[in-house]
């Protein structure tokens, strides 16, 4: 199979599974490389948006997004879930940020919101994304170059979180959870590639063990999409952020 065939195959599978067409659209305003919005009653198509910058790895990104969408669709409706922040979540984080006294008072609100939402998104996407990536790695060797390019780019960005400037601003609760997940992500790729380059910063900083523990959860909890919520909840608990977010049905 060529990467283009794999891309078409993934789109066809998603369309067959959901019974809804997938619209592929370029979106220069996208903050990340690609995103899929699953069809709803009001929007009877799946919309897969991609940044123009994603062109060299488009086939992989389409397959990856389709894989995530398929996992959501395969799960029974009452198993589909979101990771949501509440007003109380923001209040808790704001309090922690204020205690740090590292961010100007005028920026505490917006900064707290950014790091809270960022961590929630990371918690929702990273463990499931590792699963989807592992499946793609084994099922589509033709996508491995594109997959690696994307993963390496993410890991080079993620490692910036270890910088002392970032650490000095972020509350420990948020910082430690973010970095532990980044470590798990780097270790997951290291296992697949048998190459430890991207995990090295986390080893040196002492986060590898926590990353390994998070990855072990992926081995312990069944792979089926019906267990995705359980996996995300287990990560949240291990990272001590389970009281921060509500991990519940879509639309909670």
């Amino acid at each position: 199979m060529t990467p283009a065939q794999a891309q078409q195959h993934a789109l066809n599978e998603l369309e067959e599974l959901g019974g809804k067409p997938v619209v592929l659209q370029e979106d220069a305003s996208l903050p990340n490389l690609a995103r899929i919005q699953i069809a709803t009653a009001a929007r009877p198509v799946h919309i897969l948006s991609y940044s123009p910058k994603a062109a060299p790895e488009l086939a992989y990104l389409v397959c990856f997004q389709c894989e995530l969408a398929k996992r959501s669709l395969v799960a029974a409706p009452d198993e589909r879930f979101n990771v949501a922040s509440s007003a109380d979540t923001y209040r808790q984080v704001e309090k922690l940020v204020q205690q740090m006294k590292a961010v100007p008072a005028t920026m505490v609100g917006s900064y707290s919101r950014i790091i809270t939402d960022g961590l929630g998104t990371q918690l929702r996407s990273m463990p499931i994304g590792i699963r989807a990536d592992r499946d793609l790695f084994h099922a589509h060797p033709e996508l491995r170059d594109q997959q690696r390019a994307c993963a390496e780019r993410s890991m080079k960005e993620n490692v910036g979180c270890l910088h002392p400037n970032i650490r000095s601003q972020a509350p420990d609760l948020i910082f430690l959870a973010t970095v532990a997940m980044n470590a798990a992500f780097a270790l997951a790729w290291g296992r697949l590639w048998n190459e430890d380059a991207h995990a090295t910063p986390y080893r040196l900083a002492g986060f590898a063990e926590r990353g390994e523990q998070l990855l072990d959860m992926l081995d312990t909890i069944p792979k089926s999409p019906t267990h995705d919520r359980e996996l995300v909840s287990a990560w949240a608990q291990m990272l001590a952020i389970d009281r921060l977010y509500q991990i519940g049905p879509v639309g909670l």
Partner: protein
Amino acid sequence: MMSPDDPLVFTLAWDDIAPTSLPEDARQPGGEAFRVAVIRFLQKQYEPLGGKARIIFNDADRTLTVHWAKRDGFQSVLEKAQEALSLGDRSVAISLLKALIARTPDNPTQLYNLGMVYSDDGKLELAEDLLRKAAALDPRNAHIVVAIGVVRARAGDLESAIDTLRRAVEIEPEDPFAHQNLGACLLKQGEAESAAAHFRQSLRHSPDSLPSQLGLAQSLESSGSLHEADEVYQGLIKTAGHTPVGEWAKEGRTRIAHALMRKAGSERPDVLMYCLGALERFEEMTDEQIQTLGREIAILGMRGLDINDPSQKYTLKSLPGDFSGMHLVSLMYTAFQRVAPGTDVGIDLSREYAQAVALFEAR
């Protein structure tokens, strides 16, 4: 946004370096021993990966910055070993893998790779020893467990192989190789229906796998689902062509055709008449002409003759007319009985042929 070609760069405060990463006497941030230990740690991590690493200690802000970039075309020793294997240079691969294991004996990937090489070379004890070490280090790795199952099967211990492969399926329920190998062992064990179920699982995740398609066809054939088995064999003949798998599929179709023919009745009057007609026709032909005819049908048969569908017609160069598959097989059988008796033509028409000879001689 970063480019994939950008180097890996990270900065850590000295105080954020985990003491456990460094020897006890080198944990005082900023000291000479600390710097040497950090450099050694990074060297150990990055040296096997090749490329260029730059390590900067910033005394002013007490931080460490590392730049690391891969060298284009760099291959790790493991990659070199894997390439040697793919090129069939097994002795080079074995030397490289042994050297790697001597250096880092606790790397399950290296142990697995060498174990697989030994398994393929028939050195089963060595293979199992290495694979079990790999499994102890990485117990949730289904590929390693599958490899152990294969070694057990190759050693002739089917029960243990099946137990091991079932464990692999538990660990990785979607691994096509685990299902394929479990199916193969169950088929050998005579559990054809269970085997078919695992080959189907394997094909769900790896639909193009020829060994799984062949295994499924053989399992179906063994469990008596002959028509479905025949369909799978037909598909295999198209996709596998003249490979060994394609040839096995052709043999499978011949067996099925034979079995279906025998299922239809004890003796086939149409076959009797075809054989009798052939004996009469051969009276006017030389042995060489008969031999040519027999060979032409045999060659045609290699592409598959449908002997259960009389509406399917074939033509020959050496004999005018349209013939059904069964007619041609009867002609071929009679031809070989005439010019090379005892040749196994892949189908037993001896009873019909004997009656035809009796009728022919009684005319």
